[in-house]
């Protein structure tokens, strides 16, 4: 298959999915809510994927940025009465950039395994801080509720399910587009080089620390955007959004969907949210079942859902591939 044929296939596939995405609001309300949730989660997982799948840095701290941004929206809009979306976006991103810039400089100096553990430990510290010392602002365990839909300051209202869904869809599309561009760019190739052989990248003359640092801050920003959307979507934010279990969930979804692929995060979010929704109507042990699925994927289906789909595509197109 030539490069152009493959390119056209991707475009047509994307267009089909895009068309489907556009008509989702025609489905019943619970489906629209589910779809919105999946999209928001997929943005979150793709931030982890940028860091882990493409750069090779496993972080158990993505929830820090998701939760911080969500709390910025919650605190400023509910407790301080500031509702302009763009203003909140600016503040949330500033907060997220500050935290990631500060923490990244320290954490990226240690070896990969210790990086993972220190992001986990730091995440726990942030959770503790939100629960207790900052309880006055965050309302601790109770959380903050009654968050209204975003106020764009324009005449567009986002209160209905369908309107908010389209809003999220646009933002998700932009995020995925950005990640698509980055991974095909020189910066992206360098990221992957660092993932596969950092030692050689250093010898070739790359400032690998800078690449990792920029990627870390970028992935924090994307996770923050997802967290903001979540606050609007859920209407309620509590410390669970900062907990390391949620960071672990991001990794699980990433693996299930297919690590290091563009659509993997979407598949992962779909599987996770869909399964949770479906399984929890039969049993309350959906988390354990997710765990079993994750174990099966890591042991037997290392490419995740995206890998499985790609394998099916290869088989259907006659098995002619370059590898």
């Amino acid at each position, binding site marked *: 298959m030539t490069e152009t044929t493959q390119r056209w296939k991707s475009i047509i596939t994307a267009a089909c999915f895009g068309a489907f995405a556009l008509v989702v609001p025609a489905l019943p309300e619970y489906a629209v809510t589910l779809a919105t949730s999946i999209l928001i989660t997929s943005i979150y997982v793709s931030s982890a994927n940028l860091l882990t799948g493409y750069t090779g840095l*496993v972080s158990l701290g993505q929830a820090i940025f998701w939760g911080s941004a969500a709390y910025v929206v919650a605190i400023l809009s509910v407790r301080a009465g500031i509702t302009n979306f763009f203003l909140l976006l600016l503040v949330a991103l500033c907060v997220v950039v500050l935290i990631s810039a500060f923490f990244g400089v*320290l954490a990226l100096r240690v070896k990969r395994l210790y990086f993972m553990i220190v992001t986990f430990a730091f995440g726990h510290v942030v959770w503790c801080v939100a629960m207790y010392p900052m309880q006055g602002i965050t309302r601790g365990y109770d959380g903050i509720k009654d968050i209204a839909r975003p106020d764009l300051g324009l005449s567009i209202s986002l209160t209905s399910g369908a309107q908010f869904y389209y809003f999220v869809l646009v933002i998700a599309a932009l995020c995925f587009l950005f990640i698509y561009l980055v991974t095909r760019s020189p910066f992206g190739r360098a990221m992957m080089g660092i993932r596969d052989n950092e030692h050689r990248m250093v010898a070739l003359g790359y400032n690998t620390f800078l690449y990792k640092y920029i990627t870390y801050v970028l992935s924090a920003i994307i996770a923050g955007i997802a967290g903001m959307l979540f606050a609007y979507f859920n209407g309620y934010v509590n410390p669970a959004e900062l907990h390391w279990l949620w960071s*672990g969930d991001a990794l699980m979804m990433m693996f299930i969907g297919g690590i290091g692929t563009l659509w993997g995060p979407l598949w992962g979010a779909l599987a996770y949210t869909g399964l949770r929704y479906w399984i929890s109507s039969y049993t309350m*042990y959906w988390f354990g079942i997710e765990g079993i699925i994750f174990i099966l994927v890591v042991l037997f289906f290392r490419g995740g859902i995206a890998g499985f789909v790609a394998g099916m595509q290869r088989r259907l197109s006659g098995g002619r591939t370059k590898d």
Partner: protein
Amino acid sequence: MEFSVAVAQVLNGIAFGMLLFLLAAGLSLMFGLMGVVNLAHGAYFMVGGYVGLTILEMTGSFWLAILGGAASGAFLGFLTERFFMRRVYGLHGHESILLTFALSIVLSDFSLFLWTGTPRWVQPPGFLDFSFSFFGNPYPAYRLAIIAVGVLVFIVLYLFQEKTLWGAIVRAGVDDKEMATGLGINIPLVFTAVFCLGAFLAGFGGFVGAPILGLHIGLDVEIIMLALAVVIVGGIGSLPGCLTTCLLLGLSDTLGKVMWPKYASLTIYLVVVIVLLVKPSGLFGKETR
């Protein structure tokens, strides 16, 4: 705080530190020898406690229950090592963390299914179910027994590690796997044995700790967080260092919960972050190559 209350809390902290040691010793050995971080270790602890409780209820024998709890831990450890860890030994460390994380979730839900979410309590065995009079206040003899048990386990492990052939083999494996294999040592067997031993101690700890900590779903997460903190802050490769760190953290957690409950976990983990950034091999750890 009154003096007698303070002493009681210190003793509680030491007892808790001993329970942590039962977990941390195995965890630290697994990481040092095999490079795997076993997040399911807390689940072995919890399941060991529950299984022991069930056996106690069925047979009335505390000793059988201890044996059952420890054995269930060892069994789970064996399953983990044989079917999961074998596949990820060569890979990056994070694979083991994620796999065991998923495993602990599965075990936790499984326990929820078998034993429900109601917290359970275990009575200390008859002959230990009394209190000493300590500075005018009663103090449970069982907790002192736990401290004694912890010291005993430490001595046994230390002698095993330093004075026996098996211990030397394990130490050799920690230092240089390839060399050890080259000398004809059956490394896979050693790995399995170490895993089972660690899990055995965890299951044992879960049940003997039950009269103090109780049994509830979520105990696995609470206890693994502290055991991890011990292994990180204390470092690997030194058993006395591990015990010391366990006692320190046990005291910090217990006293912290009494004196500033909102900040106990925060402070401990802040220390963890600082240690990881400044001296990742831990306070007592040996620098790895």
